[in-house]
């Protein structure tokens, strides 16, 4: 959807979306865990409730035999045992009197509970036969209820998770919508503006080229030069915008290009712009360096780097352009870019200095072209000293 609008989700937006999904998933897992825990405990209580009747019967039977032992303790002292259950007796200080239990983990505050795969039932008789205030009856927990409940929880949690993820997906789309709409609006605006700029820019550029400067006085030449600079700036912006809006429809015509020739040509083109800021352009170009790519695109890449080097340079500064067999670099003496801003340098509509003009699309175009031709861009910059863009292949 976003691609149709010529807009790609940037890294930070994707990161935000991933962050939301991660947070949302954790939230779902926490909610499901809590509800599973509550459900599991309610099912356990239900199971214990069902077992309580049987356990109470066992306790009554045991108590009857304990009473008999209490009365006849001087005659025999055999603790009452039963194959159906184990038991233990404790006095009122919870001191063990006798036990045949498998699990010794006794919770005196509970009535029925599970412990180490055993079900315990605690009964408190009215009379303490043999001093027994607490009678603990123990039967083994077969665990059938547990596996059934866990299976149930697993199935429900799975479907619930899927459902919640689908809901989350639509929620995230809702969240993105305002952002998408804003980008859509901006793109529409740029496209419309670009379209409207086409005719006047062509007319200005053609007419400036047709002017015969030899027959003009110095004052007029100065004025014409200023118009030329302005027109070139607008033309550059126009070409950038055209590139962005039509980039999916432009077919690259790749050929072996003489970079030495192209760079010196582009430097010449920007000379008038550089002169307006009293900048010196120093060229250090190795002869006969070739690169296979589209002429318009590589020119656009160089133009944007040069345009930035001029735009963000200081008055009386300099620009150095070097070309070697496997790289070229543009070094300016401008305001520089802070380290944190360097991370977002190639993001569209990113601008770090509002005093200079522009839409923040130049370096985005550079990165798009570099990506197409597998060119590596290295940026090194120091605030108030300058920036160096190195394009290698």
């Amino acid at each position, binding site marked *: 959807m976003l691609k149709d609008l010529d807009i790609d989700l940037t890294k930070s937006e994707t990161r935000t979306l991933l962050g939301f999904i991660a947070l949302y998933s954790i939230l779902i897992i926490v909610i499901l865990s809590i509800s599973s825990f509550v459900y599991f405990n309610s099912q356990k209580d239900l199971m214990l409730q069902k077992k309580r009747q049987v356990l109470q019967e066992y306790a009554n039977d045991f108590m009857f035999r304990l009473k008999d032992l*209490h*009365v006849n*303790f*001087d005659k025999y*002292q*055999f*603790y009452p045992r039963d194959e159906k259950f184990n038991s233990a007796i404790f*006095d*009122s*200080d919870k*001191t063990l*009197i*006798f036990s045949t239990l498998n699990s010794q983990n006794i919770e005196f505050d509970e009535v029925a509970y599970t412990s180490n795969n055993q079900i315990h039932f605690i009964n408190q008789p009215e*009379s*303490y*036969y*043999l*001093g*027994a*205030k607490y009678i603990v009856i123990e039967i083994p927990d077969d665990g059938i209820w547990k596996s059934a409940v866990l299976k149930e929880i697993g199935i429900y949690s799975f479907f619930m998770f899927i459902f919640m993820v689908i809901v989350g997906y639509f929620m995230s789309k809702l969240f993105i919508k305002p952002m998408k709409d804003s980008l859509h609006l901006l793109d529409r605006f740029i496209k419309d503006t670009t379209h409207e700029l086409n005719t006047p820019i062509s007319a200005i550029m053609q007419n400036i080229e047709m002017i015969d400067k030899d027959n003009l006085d110095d004052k007029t030449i100065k004025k014409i030069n200023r118009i030329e600079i302005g027109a070139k700036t607008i033309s550059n912006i126009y070409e950038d915008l055209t590139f962005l809006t039509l980039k999916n429809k432009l077919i690259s015509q790749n050929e072996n290009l003489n970079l030495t020739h192209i760079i010196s040509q582009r430097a010449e083109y920007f000379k008038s712009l550089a002169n307006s800021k009293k900048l010196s352009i120093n060229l250090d170009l190795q002869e006969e360096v070739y690169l296979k790519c589209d002429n318009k695109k590589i020119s656009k890449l160089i133009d944007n780097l040069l345009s930035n080097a001029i735009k963000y340079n200081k008055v009386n500064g300099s620009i150095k352009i070097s070309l070697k067999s496997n790289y070229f670099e543009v070094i300016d003496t401008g305001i520089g870019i802070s380290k944190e801003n360097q991370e977002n340098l190639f993001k569209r509509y990113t601008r770090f200095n509002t005093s200079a003009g522009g839409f923040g699309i130049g370096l985005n175009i550079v990165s798009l072209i570099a990506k197409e031709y597998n060119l590596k861009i290295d940026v090194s910059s120091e605030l108030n000293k300058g920036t160096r863009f190195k394009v290698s292949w």
Partner: protein
Amino acid sequence: MVKKLLIAVIIFNTYSFASSYEKNCVACHNNMIVSIDKFFYRYLLKYSSEKNVKSSLAEYLKNPNKDNTIMPNAFIKRYGIKEKTTLNDDELIEAINEYWDIYKVFGKLQ
């Protein structure tokens, strides 16, 4: 004469070396219809733990009355309430401890 003297010495020694419980409790209870262990199991039935049994027994012996006896009304009507103990606290505790050790359930169940 020598024989009589020997018997007297044996009786005297037995009495002298008898414990506080033997001298002050068993001596009287032996003459009663209800044996002394039945009293113990009644205490156990009502008070459960060692601490509770001992403290309630001591309290009763120091101040025996109808309200703190564990025996049924019929028994009290027939035999009445016993006299207050003449033993001091140490002797009383010693006697009760021995009584507990003899009849306690702990360690006897099989």
